[in-house]
């Protein structure tokens, strides 16, 4: 019997495909998310919009909050550790969290190295803005990738940019003659063997979700069309007027993303969406997507 294998780690992500992973901060919110059909929840102390508003250093959530949420729902529970903070990650692993998000939403703890994720039994998901970043994370042991987008903004434009960037680079990599692949790897800052795995499969070797700014069923459906395997919704649900209804609508939109008649029905009467932020109004130093290396 073997545990903590890459197949088990990437396998759980495969099971989450076509689903919606929702940020929750209380057991009550976790119940609403589960009842709406979330395939997993992300247990947090504050959603990204509130982290952004609060400023200061954002850290791993209090284990009590995470534990209460784990005790409340039967679906997988994820939690965030700071970039590079392997002790926060070990604590979450010891608690039995199902997936760890090494996340730029929290303040990075190491300005040079991400966590060496290969050494853990628990699987990790990491954010990316381009293919090189995705492949570096996979080489470090990430079993799932998501776009960074710009968390807590309710503005999907950065998630779209990052998704298109990754897909575009995958197409380029797959079209290259063999002789030019090592140089592509060098310029992307990605290990050659992971580049070769992408060429073999024609896609990332792990599941890729959209994250960072998804606020409506249409946003979620667009990310599926762009080639994402599922979506994370952070602030978009519990910062909206009617979280239960919006959550359920986004779940349905991810399943039926190709059916526009159905999407029209799903998108009706959802109440107020979260108030969005124009990315150009966020000073460069305060953009969460710039965190990570």
């Amino acid at each position, binding site marked *: 019997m073997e545990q903590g294998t890459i197949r*088990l780690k990437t396998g759980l992500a495969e*099971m989450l495909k076509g689903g919606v992973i929702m940020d929750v901060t209380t057991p009550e919110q976790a119940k609403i998310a589960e009842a709406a059909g*979330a395939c997993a929840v992300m247990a947090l102390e504050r959603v990204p919009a509130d982290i952004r508003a609060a400023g200061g250093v954002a850290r791993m959530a209090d284990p009590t909050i995470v534990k209460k949420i784990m005790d409340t729902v039967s*679906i997988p529970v994820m939690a965030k550790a700071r970039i590079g903070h392997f002790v926060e990650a070990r604590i979450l692993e010891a608690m*039995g969290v199902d997936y760890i998000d090494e996340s730029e939403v929290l303040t990075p703890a190491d300005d040079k190295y991400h966590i060496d994720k290969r050494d853990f039994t628990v699987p990790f998901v990491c954010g990316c803005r381009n293919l090189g970043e995705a492949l570096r994370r996979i080489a470090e042991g990430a079993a799932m990738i998501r776009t960074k987008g710009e968390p807590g903004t309710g503005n999907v434009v950065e998630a779209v940019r990052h998704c298109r960037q990754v897909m575009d680079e995958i197409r380029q990599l797959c079209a290259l003659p063999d002789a030019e692949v090592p140089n592509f790897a060098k310029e992307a800052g990605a290990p050659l063997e992971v580049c070769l795995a992408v060429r073999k499969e024609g896609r990332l070797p792990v599941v890729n979700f959209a994250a960072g700014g998804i606020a409506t069923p249409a946003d979620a459906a667009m990310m599926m069309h762009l080639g994402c395997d599922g979506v994370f919704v952070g602030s978009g649900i519990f910062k909206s007027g009617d979280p239960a209804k919006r959550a359920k609508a986004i779940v349905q939109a991810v*399943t039926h993303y190709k059916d526009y008649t159905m999407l029209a029905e799903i998108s009706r009467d959802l109440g107020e969406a979260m108030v969005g932020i124009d990315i150009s109004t966020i000073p460069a130093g305060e953009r969460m997507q710039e965190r990570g290396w």
Partner: protein
Amino acid sequence: MARCVGVLALQGAFREHMTALARLGVAAREVRKLQDMDAVDALIIPGGESTTIGKLLIDGGMLDPLRKRITAGMPVYGSCAGLILLCRNIEDSEQPRLGVLDATVRRNAFGRQVDSFETELSMPVLGVEPVSAVFIRAPVLTSVGDNVTVLAQINGQAVAVRQDNVLATSFHPELTTDSRIHSYFLTFTV
């Protein structure tokens, strides 16, 4: 009549089952809506999140019609979440289900993700060579009815069963390249 196997594609690892069927050269199609069921002679319910898939089955008005098709003899195979959805009784849960398999299931029976495991599993109906079985937050059947045949077990509890036209496994053959379970299921369709 040419057979076509549907793969329920509401949420979860449906792509892997499509790939497994393609490897066997079998016509397959994704099933997202009730109308998609008209074209299929058998159905695979993939791994995923059973509560999510159950809710989407209800929202799409598919739960009762699917149950009728299975009761009328359509072959169905459920892996992991699919197994849960097929069971009549689910411990500590009121979640939606098809309830066609006379068995009681315990969800997350081995624990959380850190307790997930791979093992070589004896499944005599497939031959002497064991199957490489991937258990991810997997369920087990804590009891089965007299009409249910146990095909494989771990620690004395059933993890693969057959009841007439219904096949269910706690583990995920779609995550491996061993096609024997899919081939075995296809024998139900002839």
